[in-house]
């Protein structure tokens, strides 16, 4: 199977509001895929439905050919959600070990200590999460996301709140996983990141795909404009309406 993600005729309705309307796309194995759109366009809803957090109104969302279930260890997915949090009263190492055990990591303690050393937080291992800065907590969350070496990494606004140095570190880590063969789905508002990193992208507006394909295909479709300009044009049209 070439695709790690397949979304077919996905529709999502909350109450009387249709959030996603007949959405179709796929993410190929090993590629970096950009999921783009303004706030409220349906990006996070799509990811939540893909990971079984929401039941779709209709359609199918598959990860490696199956509906995602966390207990299925054959499909390893790392998800860094936009709404991030940790057990604030627990210490860093216990939290990481807990997630590592849930994800089936063989030596979660060893892995966590190695990771903490790499991101400069080894001295914080026994510290309560609530004592860490926001940026430090994000590094812990990223560590938890990647600790079982997932085949599919879904990162919702991964660099939000990061300073340039940590953003660089994060990009390095993402790049490493990409080189190992993981497919990466990035939800971001930074179009420069998408142009630089992504192989393909999907631009959502009001729950429908407005642009989909490789970056060059999308640019070609919109007359060679940059992704920033395309974004403004798609959403500008809405403002004009």
């Amino acid at each position, binding site marked *: 199977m070439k695709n790690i993600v397949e979304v077919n005729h996905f529709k999502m*309705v*909350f*109450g009387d509001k249709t959030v996603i309307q007949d959405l179709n796309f796929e993410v190929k194995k090993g590629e970096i895929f950009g999921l783009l759109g303004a706030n409220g366009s349906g990006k996070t809803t799509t990811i*939540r439905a893909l*990971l*079984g*957090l929401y*039941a779709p*109104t209709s359609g199918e969302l598959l990860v490696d050919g199956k509906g*995602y*279930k*966390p*207990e299925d*260890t054959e499909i390893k*997915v790392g*998800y*860094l*959600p936009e*709404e*991030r*949090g*940790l*057990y*604030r*009263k*627990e210490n860093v190492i*216990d939290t990481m070990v*807990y*997630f590592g*055990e*849930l*994800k*089936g990591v063989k030596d979660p303690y060893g892995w966590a200590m190695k990771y903490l050393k790499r991101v400069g937080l080894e001295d914080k291992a026994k510290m309560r999460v609530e004592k860490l800065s926001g940026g430090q907590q994000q590094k812990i*969350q990223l560590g*938890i*996301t990647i600790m079982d070496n997932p085949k599919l990494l879904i990162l919702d606004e991964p660099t939000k709140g990061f300073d340039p140095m940590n953003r660089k570190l994060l990009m390095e880590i993402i790049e490493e996983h990409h080189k190992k063969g993981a497919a990466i789905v990035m939800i971001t508002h930074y179009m420069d990141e998408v142009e630089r990193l992504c192989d393909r992208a999907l631009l959502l507006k009001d729950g429908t795909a407005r642009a989909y394909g490789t970056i060059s295909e999308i640019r070609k479709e919109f007359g060679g404009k940059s992704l920033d300009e395309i974004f403004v044009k798609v959403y500008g049209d809405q403002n004009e309406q």
Partner: protein
Amino acid sequence: MSSSKAILKVFKFEFLRQVRKPAFWAATLLIPLLIGGIYLISFISSQGVDTEPTLDENTKVAITDEAGIFSAGMPFVIDGDKEVGVEMVKNGEVDLYFYIPADFAESKKAEFYHISEGLEIFNYDGNILKGLLSNDAVSRVGELDALALTGQYEIVDNKLTGAGEDANALGKAIIPFFIGILFFMFVALCGNRFLMTVVEEKENRISEMILTSVSSKHLIVGKILAMLALGMIQVVAIAVPVLLLVFFNRNNSLVGPILAMIEIDPAMIILSILLFAVSAVFYAGVCTFVGSLVSTARDASQFIGPAIIAMVMPLYFMQMFMMTEPSVVVQIMTYFPFTAPVALMLRSGFGTISVWEYCIGLVVVAVSSVIAIKFAVVTFQKNAINFSIAKPKFLKK
């Protein structure tokens, strides 16, 4: 990962993180310390005070004194034999009747007859007899009196009962009531923890990360098991000091007679323990469901109030539960899941429930526990990422 492994991982994390907290041990040890403190105060204050029960002036007493230890002409000494005295008790002519046989000096045994009131806790027959002798200023001085006055004799307690009445209702009630009290302790100590264990995921905005690592079913079951284990530690921490206190005071004038009264009905004790277990699981399921329904601890406390009120509701109707023939209200409370735990405990304590009725109630609570946990799992899955919405969303798609 297999279901049991995933549940075990959640259990281990949730159990250890609570058990490592000083607050957990402070709450656990506070109650035994309070019990010890109250015992110490009552012990100190009772020193030098005559706590032996005295005979009410309205109590009518009769004695057949074949041994002749009372002086002649005492008003309570009757001419009739034992049969006459027993009949007087049955007819209500007297409240208490003592039979002192002719061979009292050798046998050192007297007999005591009274109508059982079911729940009397003072076995004060010996004191009454001693009191009567002490008041008998002209009673015969001698070996028999000394024997009687020092209380070095055995009195065979014969509780008389009417048709359908239980002579040792208290004796049978002690163990079920003790288990009932432990259940209340469990609810009081664990309720908030059950709520918070799921609300915390939402308040810390960790639901998405956790639910993509473990299924909501495994998460909730693991959490409930961990909280149950913690609750059991606390219950044991309360029960053990109480039992030790009872053990070390087993010869005490108050505790001794109560212990002697305890009647062990193995079937009811097993059922009571089972009821404790399924009721704890049911309560855990309900609290976890409420926690899954709401977004914050404050919202949770609003919802859990009615559930707790329903649970203690049978206590407000206590008198109804004492009746041998259960009323409709009692029947409803016995089989309504929220009131059933306490209703069953009361009825078994008062001896007003048969084993098969108890079993039906037990099954109702057990099935309700499974349903409550299933609701909690589904609700948590559907509601876990509604971080800012207090309104229940579980009914919506």
